[in-house]
């Protein structure tokens, strides 16, 4: 078997028993990237030289038995997450030359235990998109069918994992950016509860919604990575003090006989829901029932308002956050004599159309006279969406839904219709607004061979339970 195809669990066993080295494993991933990246475009930056040096250092750690779960395992990182000494563009030309002097906290945790950074993954610029077509570094074709999109915004990370260019990836999810491409590419993606993992060092999009999570080949691998990156961080005041549970133990103690699964009826009556996606999701639910779980239809009546709330809250927070990118202190600066032109022209050249659109919507919705009608109204409806989830989780342990209404669509199909692209987030935006975890696991394929993803949503900080149910679905 080619080493780049291994899971974290398999790679760990091989490294620790001396069957192969981290240099062997890293070389296999770099070789695959070299063969495939021209077509798949999953990487904006590849760190060939430093990755091999890091792998050599990891081999010394392994030889000296200073082994942690991610020591010597090659991984890649969404380009909207800062990596010390490695260019981090966020897929925006305004940061084309930006080399962060620090690591995001989650990346620091991995690199400190000898994780091998292979490179930086393509994405929709600053996470703005559902297809990866809003990247200033080009789209990411789906490895299962290169005429289709990989999904977004973390399309490069999803494609890199699915195409075995890395062992796992770290990405970011605001309204579906991990789960959506995970479902399109047939891998596992977790949006953790807001506050579970540190956001320090990620390029902020909507600060009240952004989360950092892993993208892996199996649920078991997901639990391994989450164990290493979760927890409170003094550099992110929104991380919660709750103790990180032992996720591997939580996976093994799942008792389907005691589990009540909620099926939210609003999610299955969406017009755009593809029949094959619907049938796969219902089959996954049926299998859980056969394994002993109780299935209960539930209602989340605020579901139909989630996209409207999401696409007000996000551009408002986005436009404020992006104010920092003005060509003054770092990044690419337009050569202008007046300060106004320096700002306006640096931003003109450095942002793609969708980023500009969101800045404009946010600036409009936050301006005098519109603030109450848009932002404040959206924040109130957000409260009602949260109440929906609180109520439903008194009746059931988890919810099961499709991740996306449809499988991967054709490149170019929706790229000129922003509203159609926004509606793709329909099953993911509600959980994001409520701050609860959502896991996408692959479950079968369409007749034309495209992967289908099923989403498991749980109450706040129930990542262990959500992954446990995910593993039960994965193994059926």
């Amino acid at each position, binding site marked *: 078997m080619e080493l780049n195809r291994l899971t974290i669990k398999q790679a760990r066993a091989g490294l620790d028993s001396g069957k192969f080295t981290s240099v062997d494993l890293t070389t296999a991933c770099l070789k695959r990237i070299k063969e495939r990246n021209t077509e798949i475009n999953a990487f904006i930056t590849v760190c060939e030289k430093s990755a091999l040096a890091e792998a050599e250092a990891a081999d010394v750690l392994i030889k000296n038995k200073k082994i942690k779960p991610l020591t010597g395992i090659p991984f890649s990182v969404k380009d909207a997450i800062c990596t010390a000494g490695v260019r981090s563009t966020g897929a925006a030309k305004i940061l084309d030359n*930006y*080399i962060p*002097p*620090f690591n995001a906290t989650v990346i620091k945790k991995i690199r400190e235990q000898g994780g091998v950074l292979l490179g930086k993954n393509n994405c929709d610029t600053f996470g703005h998109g559902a297809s990866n077509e809003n990247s200033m570094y080009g789209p990411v074709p789906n490895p299962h069918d290169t005429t289709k999109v990989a999904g977004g915004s973390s399309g490069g990370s999803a494609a890199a994992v699915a195409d075995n260019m890395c062992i796992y990836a770290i990405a970011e999810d605001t309204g579906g950016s991990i789960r959506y491409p995970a479902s399109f590419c047939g891998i596992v993606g977790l949006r953790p509860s*807001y506050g579970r993992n540190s956001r320090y060092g990620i390029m902020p999009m909507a600060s*009240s919604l952004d989360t950092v999570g892993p993208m892996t080949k199996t649920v078991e691998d997901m639990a391994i990575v989450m164990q290493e990156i979760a927890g409170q961080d*003094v550099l992110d*005041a*929104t991380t*919660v003090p709750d103790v990180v549970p032992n996720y591997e133990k939580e996976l093994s103690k799942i008792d389907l006989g005691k589990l009540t699964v909620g099926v939210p009826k609003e999610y299955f009556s969406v017009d755009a829901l593809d029949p094959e996606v619907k049938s796969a999701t219902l089959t996954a639910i049926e299998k859980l029932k056969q394994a002993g779980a109780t299935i209960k239809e539930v209602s989340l009546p*605020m579901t139909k*308002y989630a996209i*409207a*709330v999401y*696409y*007000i809250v996000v551009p408002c927070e986005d436009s404020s956050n992006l104010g920092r990118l003005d*060509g*003054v*202190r*770092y*990044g*690419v*600066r337009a050569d*202008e*004599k*007046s*300060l*106004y*032109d*320096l*700002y*306006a*022209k640096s*931003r*003109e050249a450095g*942002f793609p*159309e969708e980023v*500009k*659109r969101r*800045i*404009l*919507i946010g*600036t*409009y919705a936050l*301006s005098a006279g519109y603030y109450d009608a*848009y932002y404040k*109204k*959206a*924040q*109130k*409806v*957000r*409260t*009602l969406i*949260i109440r929906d989830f609180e109520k439903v989780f008194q009746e059931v342990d988890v919810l099961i839904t499709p991740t996306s209404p449809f499988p991967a669509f054709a490149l170019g199909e929706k790229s000129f219709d*922003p*509203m159609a692209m*926004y509606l793709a987030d329909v099953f993911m935006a509600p959980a994001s607004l409520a*701050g609860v975890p959502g896991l996408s696991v692959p479950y079968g394929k369409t007749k034309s061979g495209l992967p289908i993803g099923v989403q498991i949503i749980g109450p*706040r900080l129930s990542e262990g339970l959500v992954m446990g149910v995910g593993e039960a679905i994965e193994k059926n």
Partner: protein
Amino acid sequence: MALSLEEVRKIAKLARLNLTEAEEKRHAETISVVLDYMNILNEVNTDGVEITSQVTGLSDVMRPDEPRNCEIKKELINQMPETEDNELKVPAVFE
């Protein structure tokens, strides 16, 4: 609700964003569609509902205000587009 070209220009100026004429037109069209969609929220009765601005339930997260050494000063300065004597250089703010 239709957004006029003039409104797009006004917001773009507030946001310090240069747009081409074609972009102004496209943004006016696409943003109008998005704003129209947002009207769906008027169906929801939110009388007496509190706003949500964060979901963790945490409040007043504090740390001691103590000076710390910045160990990446040189790297930070290296990222600046223009410097003079190790300081950031910008166009004049006042005429």
